[in-house]
């Protein structure tokens, strides 16, 4: 019975994580879409270097 409960919990947890990962990405991109002027950045990144902002740049410098 404990093993069965574990299997059910594991399955629910995995599905929950995947849904959360995808759902939050959708939310960020479509629901909380940044204003058009700031979205120009999306065209700019061709490499990892170009997506670095904020604290990351600080660490790099």
């Amino acid at each position, binding site marked *: *019975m*404990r*093993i*069965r409960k*574990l299997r059910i*919990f*594991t399955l629910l*947890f*995995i599905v*929950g*994580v995947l849904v*959360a*990962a*995808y759902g*939050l*990405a*959708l*939310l*960020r*991109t*479509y*629901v*909380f*879409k*940044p204003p058009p002027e*700031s*979205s120009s*950045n*999306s065209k700019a*990144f*061709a*490499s*990892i270097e170009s*997506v*670095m*902002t*904020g*604290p*990351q740049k600080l*660490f*790099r410098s």
Partner: protein
Amino acid sequence: MVTGVVLAALYCLLTLSPLVGVALLRMKSDMTVMHDVGTNMAFAAYGIMALQPLLVSRWKWVERPFGLDVLTRFHRNMGVFAVVLLLTHPPLMAFGGAGLALITSIVQPWYVWLGRIVLVLLIVHVVVSLFWRALGLTFEKWRRVHNVLGVIILGGAFVHSWFAAYDLWLPMRFLWVVLFAITAYAYFDHRVLKPRELERSPYRVESVTPETHNVWTVKLVPPEGEKIYDYEPGQFHFITLQRGRGLPVEEHHWTISSSPSQKEFISSTIKESGDFTRTIGRTQPGDTALVEGPFGRFSYTFCPEDRDFVFIAGGIGITPLMAMLRRMRDMAKPAKVLLLYANHSEKDIAFRAELAEIAAGGTPELEVVHILSSPEPNWKGETGRLDDAKLARLIGTEVRERAFYVCAPPKMTDSVITGLRSLGVSYCHIRTERFSL
């Protein structure tokens, strides 16, 4: 039950906190969905990995509601899941806009290289953990590798995400440190503090007696002036035998075969089945042992409503059931027990005389059915495997009110559970214990 639900909810909250926290604190994104899913996969994996040591830390308040066997399985499943999540992390980011160079280019920042190394190590870690027997490793060697690699992976993942994740604003960095501190403390406690505490009060081996040609009972007594810890019949503990004489010092988990009514000693009955256990017979009275326990949920005492039992044992799987029968006898528990005890041959039957004694005693009302797969020609009892037809014949059709306790090798356990289910036994009434964690 309630504690278990609360702890499970807390686990979900903590593991998902990096993922949800990043999203909530920085809801606006100018990345593609695919790129964001890629980073989310890594945040989720970090939360899962950070709590991995906690699951197997043997902290009583974490272990008690679930049982260490269940937590260990979950730990293993989550390890595999974290690898799957992290395998999707670089390609989703690369195809989501960061560019294929993220995967293929040698010229990358050091923290990207660190991430790559951590991912490779994690894959190796999980593969070795799943197939250590097939790879010819002993349990002890595998565990040493597991502990060292685990620390490197967690440390590497922490540093990689700290420097690579631009979403990590100050509150999130605080969360990162908290998660890392939890895992570091769980590890430190498990590997350093607890062993030191156990070394301060080692148990002493009182006797080592043979039960069959390859099964031994090791009786341990606590240090003078100390009591044996409280335990339930059917639980197990970890023992590190310190015998000297060039004999290996390894920690192993064994079922407690004595009854909790016995306050002077605690015993484990051990079968010779590997390099280490083959030396059990060479243990001598006076040797010391570090004992950590109890663990596990395989005991009728956790289900006080059970009165009518069917115990099914395969080989050395008899030990937790024997502890329960001894306890029932000592407490004069008014219970009815049918024990189906499968072995290869007569010489493999452990506790045969004592089982007959308990059956003759009348409390509990015990019926023992021995089943031998390779019997001697003069054997008059049950023979062959404990298949569905035999289960149905021996148990009968009245199964609704009975509680089934199964402890056997994995294949037999699975087959018995299938058989019980086909007889109409509810999952709620089947309690199992697997030999290996």
